Structures are given as structure tokens and as C-alpha cells.
């Protein structure tokens, strides 16, 4: 690898400096369930407050499947050093608020932008959590969006499941995490 010129080195320092401030400088990557949950909680708070001005607080985390039925879910897989599936479940109120904050107009219906935003937020939350784990061998999949009141996301049977509950100032947010045993 060629050494970077001054301008390039300054850009690298600036990008990594911002990342250290926003993602932390944890270097010993542990990929157990507790670390992944912690990174997802931190990533959710960061993404929703930074991008959408939504305050998020983790209220409870438990093992097993979610009991609550969902309105909208963004599902993203992680592969490589870990095989995991993450479902970011949001209420219509939360995603409408996020859309209004980002696009300047509150949606009146579940249109293509709203569906796209669910996938983009899921992508950003899981991507940001991946960066917080500071592990090179983790690959982020493309998000899939599920839209339908009362739906349930079914995880493979060989995964240990956790449910991460949040309180927000605008609507419901819950994350389901499955990690392959």
C-alpha cells in the first residue's frame, strides 16, 4: 500500500476522527450477543437522533421472540465472522415523523418513499452497529422491507433470539436480533 500524500492523510484523519467521536474506539472486537445488542442500541440512538431528531431510549432487552405484532419492518442480515439477522420494527407514526424530518413533508400514505426509508434506516442502524463492533470480517446484506399491520418476522430455528425495546418521543421502535448458534 502506497503512503498517502498530505491532503489524503488529512482527509483520512478527518474521517477517522469523526468516526472515533461517533462510533467509539473499541478495538478488541467481541462478537457475542451482548456486544451486538449494545452496538445495536447505540446505533439506533445515533442514527435516529442524528438523521431524524428522534430521541430513543432502550427500556428493556429480553431473550426469545417478540410478542408484539409489527406495522413495518426493515430486515438486514450480517454474515462473515457472525451470522445474524436483525429486524428493525417501527410504527407508522415513527416512520412518518422520520420522513417529515428528512424530506420536509409529512407523508399522508404508506408510499414508496416511506417504504424506502424503512429499508434505509435499517441499513444505517445495522451498518452503524457493524462499524461499532470494529470487526473487519463482517458483511452487511441488503435490507428487505415488510409492510403490513400485524405481521411477524420469523427467524431461523438455529438462531438465539433477543428483543430490544425502546421508548421514543414519536412512536414505536423495537429490534429483534437472531444470532446463529
Amino acid at each position, binding site marked *: 500500500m502506497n503512503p498517502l500524500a498530505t491532503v489524503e492523510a488529512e482527509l483520512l484523519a478527518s474521517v477517522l476522527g469523526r468516526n472515533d467521536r461517533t*462510533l467509539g474506539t473499541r478495538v478488541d472486537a467481541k462478537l457475542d450477543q451482548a456486544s451486538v445488542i449494545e452496538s445495536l442500541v447505540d446505533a439506533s440512538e445515533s442514527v435516529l437522533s442524528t438523521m431524524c431528531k428522534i430521541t430513543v431510549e432502550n427500556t428493556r432487552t429480553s431473550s426469545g421472540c417478540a410478542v408484539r405484532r409489527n406495522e413495518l419492518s426493515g430486515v438486514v442480515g450480517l454474515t462473515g465472522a457472525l451470522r445474524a439477522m436483525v429486524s428493525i420494527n417501527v410504527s407508522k407514526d415513527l416512520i412518518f415523523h422520520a420522513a417529515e424530518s428528512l424530506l420536509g413533508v409529512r407523508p399522508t400514505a404508506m408510499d414508496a418513499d416511506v417504504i424506502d426509508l424503512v429499508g434505509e434506516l435499517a441499513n444505517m442502524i445495522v451498518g452503524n452497529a457493524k462499524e461499532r463492533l470494529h470487526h473487519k470480517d463482517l458483511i452487511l446484506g441488503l435490507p428487505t422491507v415488510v409492510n403490513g399491520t400485524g405481521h411477524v418476522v420469523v427467524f431461523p430455528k438455529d438462531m438465539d433470539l433477543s428483543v430490544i425495546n425502546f421508548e421514543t418521543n414519536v412512536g414505536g421502535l423495537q429490534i429483534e436480533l437472531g444470532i446463529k448458534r
Partner: protein
Amino acid sequence: MKVLVADDSGVMRKIIIRVLNSCGVTDVTEAADGQQGWTHFQASEFDLVLTDWNMPEMSGLEFLREIRGAGSKIPVIMVTTEGEKGKVIEAIQAGVTDYLCKPFEQEELQAKLDRYLAI
């Protein structure tokens, strides 16, 4: 001022275009992946390119390499969730002008745009 925005997320393109509009830029071309971006780039003159990294067909990094391979020195800003050091170095070595990790505050993007739109 003519700007090309490449991102496979339609809503992310709208978010970026909203910030561009707030900076006074209204002449914006959209591309849903790097290949579309490269096609637009070859067909028209642009003053600035903003591109995502992870896109189908052609990634933002490949798109950047095509631009630099063609000898263009146009400012290219990578707007991506990829924040790992090795990835950032890869983009810098490919000739990226600036780099913004998602999530970002709209003011952060605005500050970067102000820098390149003023040139």
C-alpha cells in the same frame, strides 16, 4: 452548477437533493447505481458527484475508479455507511475528494457542499 447523485435508495437521493436545493443547486441528475451514474457522467458535464458505496450493478468505488480512470478531476464525495479504516483508505487511494459516513446531520453535508460548490 450541475451535480450528479448516485445512490440506490430513492429516499436517500431525495434527502441529499433537498440539502443541495438548500444550497441553491437545482440542476441535479439522479442515478440508482454506479453503472447509471457512469452512463450519465459520460453523457454530460458535471461540477460535483455524490455517490453511495454499496450499490448494485456497479459500486460507488468502481464508479469513482471509472471517473478517475477517464482522467477527470471533478470533486467526488462518498456518502456511505462504510466507515472502516481500510475502506476509507481504499476510497482515498481511488481518488475520492471527500468522505461522509452515514448517519450525518444535514448541516454536515451542507458544510461539505458549501466547500465544493464555492469552487
